[in-house]
């Protein structure tokens, strides 16, 4: 395989990778604060990011490299159904606008760093805190592994095989995240996002021009799906519509429960920063919609691939000169570094604040928290790396899917408390457990498909398991809270906290 190395693409790739590596280490001094003395500095970049930095950071870690590979791959394979990522990343913003500024205010006032901190502060329940923290860490690990897989796809496209390049890239990433904390991905996100914008804007103008316009692109894809048959096509089958809508809504509600997206929220300077970002971040969604269309362009360009994930690299190699393909591949690889770094920081913050501080060393100093988190971020990344190298890729995909379902079950514990004090921690914990157990069991028994089927009489409804589990979660939480409130009414002293 090494005979097929594309040297021009590789040189461009190495240049940009070296550039962001230097930036990553330099970032510790950017908007400098005492990085080693307080977790707010290492883990949240000093809670000072304004509108633009937050826009690049959240854009960079919400729209991950894996998205750039996987969304077009799904659209290439099944058509319209793969587009659920678009309504998902639209309806998420009214939600972010209405809810996240409230969450930020609570976190800012009380000095919370993680979702589990907020839950502990609201309900004073170690059990609920632990449930939220463990769910966050477990859901994040396979997500980091997917970023590595995305990076692996483009490195392979350049013609390099073997695990060594990924290991090297990851060690570099681990080192600068260790020394610079959240400042590193925030700074690198500028480069990553600008590169991705350039790549996609060029692709959506140049590629259809080469292939005979968007009409021809859609026609080619339509023909391919007609030949393929099954649940594919340019529009949804009637049986797919509920699945499409529930996947979009469930994913949107889950998106900002993840440690990496919440880290972006908590790191911003003000509640208004978040509101302005809810207006501005949809620009990335437009980009995502165009990226998804690369899947159809691949049909028009007659790209045939062994694995659907190779669609985007194969399309760029077929239609662009080596240097631009190399530029695109570096954009995707760097696009993997930003979310991988923020995810490991978010998971490390959870471990430090809600497991280490809560159970092992409650008297830990601020500087102690920062050093525990730094080591934890290394462990999380090594875990993800081992995951990608030693286990089949499919495990990471399956676990990431389950991770979305799991993280969605932390929604009631985290969000309801911002609006009402009625819920009790026992009820929320029971709801969380019911949602996780039912959702996992249902997904598992369907061969790890994210969809569940409900038959009522002659009609059957196919919907997203995660959303079904969330509804069960809320119902259980309401009933259990009602019972707990009857059995042991809240004393006035605890009600006021």
């Amino acid at each position: 395989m090494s005979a097929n190395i594309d040297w021009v693409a590789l040189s461009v790739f190495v240049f940009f990778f070296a550039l962001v590596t230097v930036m990553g280490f330099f970032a510790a001094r950017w908007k400098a604060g005492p990085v080693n003395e307080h977790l707010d500095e290492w883990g949240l970049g000093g809670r000072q990011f304004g509108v633009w930095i937050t826009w690049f950071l959240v854009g960079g870690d919400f729209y991950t490299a894996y998205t750039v590979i996987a969304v077009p791959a799904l659209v290439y394979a099944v058509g319209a159904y793969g587009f659920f990522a678009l309504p998902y990343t639209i309806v998420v913003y009214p939600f972010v606008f209405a809810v996240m500024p409230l969450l930020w205010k609570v976190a800012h006032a009380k000095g919370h760093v993680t979702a589990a901190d907020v839950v502990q502060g609201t309900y004073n329940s170690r059990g609920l805190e632990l449930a939220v923290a463990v769910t966050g860490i477990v859901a994040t690990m396979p997500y980091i592994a997917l970023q590595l897989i995305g990076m692996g796809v483009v490195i392979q496209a350049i013609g390099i095989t073997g695990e060594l390049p990924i290991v090297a890239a990851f060690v570099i990433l681990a080192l600068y995240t260790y020394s610079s904390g959240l400042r590193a991905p925030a700074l690198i996100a500028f480069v990553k996002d600008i590169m991705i914008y350039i790549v996609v804007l060029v692709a959506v103008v140049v590629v259809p021009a080469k292939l005979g316009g968007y009409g021809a692109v859609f026609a080619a894809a339509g023909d391919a799906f007609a030949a393929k048959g099954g649940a594919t096509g340019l529009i949804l089958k009637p049986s797919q519509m509920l699945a499409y809508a529930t996947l979009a809504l469930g994913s949107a509600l889950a998106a900002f429960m993840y440690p990496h997206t919440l880290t972006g929220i908590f790191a911003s300077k003000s509640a208004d920063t978040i509101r302005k970002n809810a207006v501005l971040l949809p620009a990335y969604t437009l980009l995502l919609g165009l990226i998804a269309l690369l899947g159809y362009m691949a049909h028009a360009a007659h790209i045939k691939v062994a694995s659907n994930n190779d669609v985007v690299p194969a399309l760029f190699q077929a239609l662009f000169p080596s240097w631009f393909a190399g530029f695109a591949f570096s954009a995707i690889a760097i696009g993997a570094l930003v979310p991988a770094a923020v995810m490991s920081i978010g998971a490390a913050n959870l471990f430090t604040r809600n497991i280490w501080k809560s159970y092992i060393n409650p008297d830990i100093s601020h500087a102690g928290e920062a050093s525990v988190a730094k080591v934890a971020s290394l462990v999380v990344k090594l875990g993800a790396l081992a995951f990608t190298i030693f286990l089949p890729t499919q495990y990471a995909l399956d676990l990431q899917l389950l991770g979305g379902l799991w993280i969605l079950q932390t929604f009631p514990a985290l969000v309801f408390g911002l609006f009402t004090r009625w819920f009790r921690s026992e009820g929320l914990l029971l709801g969380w457990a019911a949602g996780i157990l039912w959702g996992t069991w249902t997904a598992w028994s369907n061969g790890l498909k994210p969809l569940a089927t409900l038959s009522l009489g002659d009609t059957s409804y196919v919907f997203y398991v995660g959303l079904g589990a969330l509804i069960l979660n809320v119902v259980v939480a309401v009933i259990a809270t009602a019972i707990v409130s009857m059995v042991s009414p809240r004393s006035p002293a605890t009600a006021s906290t």
Partner: protein
Amino acid sequence: MWVLLLLPFVGLLWVPFYNFMEPELFGFPFFYWYQLAWVPITSLLIWLVYRSRTPDDETP
């Protein structure tokens, strides 16, 4: 004004409303340009709500 934030949910989650090929726009089937059009519309709606609310006191 806050009710404006619900419009994207209604417009995008009621799939039978837009699951069509026609009418096309610039070669895009309706299904695609309709959903893409919701991106700027959603931004605009959120901005309108942002404008209408009374700014909260934020002393950093």
